């Protein structure tokens, strides 16, 4: 049955004419139908880590070099972007003032298609209803719906709204709902909010995707135009790492300052001490006092028999983002019902220094120091109880978490070893496994830069996390996280938060791009440093 489908699809494709400029097309176009990987449903398997090998991110057209802009060849059909006269003048001005005007200089989301040809790898995950693209650059992602659903209306996104369908062996994605703030490249090529894209993804061999984009924007261009380029599989690259653009910028310019006690040290001798220290607190078995991890009702399963986690969830966080321990509301800090389930008294087993530090972090002048106030990613486990939705993608090889506040976690299920200990990440290095109906995730290599919540509960570079996710009924996943961190705590502790499945779609939170609050928090901090407290 599948073979018959493949054969038919191959015949359809072979009959489809390929329109492109020789220069921009992949060097070879071998016979397609036989040599490309496919999923069980017969669709071409686009999964893997991909990256361009061109200079399109600098300038889509043929160009010689400028300072900070290497030379490159055109990826555009005919090398012509058909600007309307007024738009051509804007483009020329953008080019002259690109260091000042390029949204990427401010670490704003690059938009589509620019994100696709930046010099950063990205990974594709694919199921029958969704295709996710997770990008190394600032942990941006795209969630492409292939379930026949329609575009959302009346809202704009930096990364657009992507709906895909298969035409034979080609994935065709309509991208709409763009804002007018992103560029196509560093050279100042731009568009309006009327931009519409049609992307075509065709595997031409196991390691090459022919990527074609038709661009339409009647406010800016006289007619539609096309770009086309190969995406290359990053053979030998086992996982994506992180490039947090704004966090790196603020650490470099001093706007986000090192916390000597919690951040992973730079000095190799102290790094060795940190490794030994982290290992000094063993990850305990799951506390026997907790309820059994078995589904209490009917749960859906994937074709491979594993519990089906895929979909949209909202954590029932119980105020954990304002304190893991039970407490009442205080002015504008809401109440927390308390999510600590071990120790049994619901109290975090903090060392004495941590008790004092946490009190200081609650002072108004320390509000600026919460990394999420800078719109940096929340870390583990905070990403899971920040009161904002997320989407789980589930394949036999991975569970991927896409957070509406624009970050991701990729959890491979292949039992791989963790990264070398000195490689530290905001979201850490997660490896998962199925333990019966429970997804168990071990996370290490955390950087110690995150806070557990707005009141400043503490984790350090010594933090390690074991998470357990089990669907307890059709609508609820029980989420637990056990944390060891011998820099901050006297013993391991565990939280539990229900995750509620909902019939919703992710929107997009452009936090850094629209952050109005950070300057106010900085003013409060700077005033306090001058010796005045308001």
């Amino acid at each position, binding site marked *: 049955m599948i073979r018959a489908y493949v054969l038919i699809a191959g015949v359809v494709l072979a009959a489809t004419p390929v329109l492109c400029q020789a220069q921009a097309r992949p060097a070879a176009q071998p016979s397609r139908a036989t040599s490309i990987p496919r999923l069980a449903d017969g669709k071409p398997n686009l999964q893997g880590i991909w990256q361009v090998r061109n200079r399109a991110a600098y300038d889509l057209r043929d160009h010689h070099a400028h300072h900070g802009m290497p030379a490159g060849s055109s990826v555009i059909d005919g090398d012509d972007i058909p600007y309307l006269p007024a738009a051509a003048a804007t483009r020329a001005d953008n080019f002259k003032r690109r260091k000042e005007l390029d949204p990427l200089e401010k670490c704003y989301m690059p938009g589509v298609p620019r994100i696709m040809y930046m010099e950063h790898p990205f990974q594709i995950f694919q199921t029958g209803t969704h295709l996710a693209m997770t990008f190394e650059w600032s942990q941006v992602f795209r969630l492409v719906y292939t379930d026949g659903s329609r575009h959302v209306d*009346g809202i704009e996104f930096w990364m657009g709204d992507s709906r895909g369908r298969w035409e034979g062996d080609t994935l065709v994605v309509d991208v709409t709902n763009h804002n007018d703030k992103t560029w196509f490249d560093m050279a100042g090529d731009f568009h309006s909010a009327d931009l519409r894209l049609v992307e075509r993804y065709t595997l031409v061999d196991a390691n090459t995707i022919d990527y074609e984009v038709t661009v339409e924007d009647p406010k800016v261009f006289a007619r539609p135009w096309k770009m086309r380029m190969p995406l290359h599989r990053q053979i030998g690259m086992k996982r994506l790492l992180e490039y947090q653009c704004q966090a790196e910028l603020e650490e470099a310019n001093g706007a986000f300052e090192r916390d000597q006690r919690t951040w992973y040290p730079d000095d190799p001798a102290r790094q060795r001490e940190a490794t030994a220290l982290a290992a000094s607190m063993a990850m305990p078995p799951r506390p026997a006092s907790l309820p059994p991890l078995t589904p209490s009702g009917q749960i859906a399963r994937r074709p491979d028999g594993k519990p089906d986690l895929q979909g949209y969830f909202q954590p029932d966080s119980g105020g954990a983002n304002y304190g893991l321990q039970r407490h009442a509301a205080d*002015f504008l800090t809401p*109440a927390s019902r308390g999510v600590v389930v071990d120790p049994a008294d619901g109290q975090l087993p903090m060392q004495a220094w941590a008790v004092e530090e946490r009190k200081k972090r609650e002072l*108004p002048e320390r509000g600026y120091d919460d990394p999420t106030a800078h719109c940096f990613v929340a870390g583990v486990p905070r990403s899971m109880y920040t009161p904002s*939705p997320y989407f789980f993608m589930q394949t036999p090889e991975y569970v991927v978490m896409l957070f509406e506040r624009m970050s991701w976690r990729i959890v491979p299920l292949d039992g791989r070893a963790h990264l070398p200990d000195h490689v530290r990440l905001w979201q850490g290095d997660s490896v998962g496994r199925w333990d019966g109906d429970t997804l168990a995730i071990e996370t290490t290599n955390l950087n110690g830069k995150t806070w557990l919540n*707005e009141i400043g509960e503490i984790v350090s570079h010594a933090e390690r996390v074991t998470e357990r996710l089990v669907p307890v009924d059709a609508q609820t996943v029980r989420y637990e996280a056990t944390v060891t961190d011998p820099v901050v705590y006297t013993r391991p502790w565990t939280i539990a938060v229900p995750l509620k499945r909902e019939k919703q779609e992710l929107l*997009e939170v452009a936090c850094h791009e629209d952050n109005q*609050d950070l300057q106010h928090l900085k003013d409060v901090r700077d005033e306090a440093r001058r010796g005045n407290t*308001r």
Partner: protein
Amino acid sequence: MRSVVVIILGFLATSPVIGHHSFTAEFDETKPVKLTGTVTQMRWSNPHGWIYIDVKGADGKVVNWACETGSVNGLYRRGWRKEDLLPGTVLTVEGWAARNGSPTMNSQSLLLPDGRRLFAGTSNNRSDEAK
């Protein structure tokens, strides 16, 4: 239809809080503010939206205040759209002023002249929790 939405939102206004930063750090408990002014624009943004209103002081001077609302994703999911709040709308906003002394406040309630509550009425509501 819209009146139904407003009633639902009145209920939501009693829900607890959310933010990506500490509201307690940014706003001052000793500075409650109640202002009536005319909307000049709404910034339809995440994780918080902002409504700007022109407020005439006792000295006749007009000051443009920035009033923080819940996230637009939360508003969008509850049926609100960009076009729903037009410039020129008169609003009464209650909340607390920012500690840094700028004409900035969080919004605990946003009231239209007929007494109806606009949006969820608070900038630190559980705006992107889909309850």
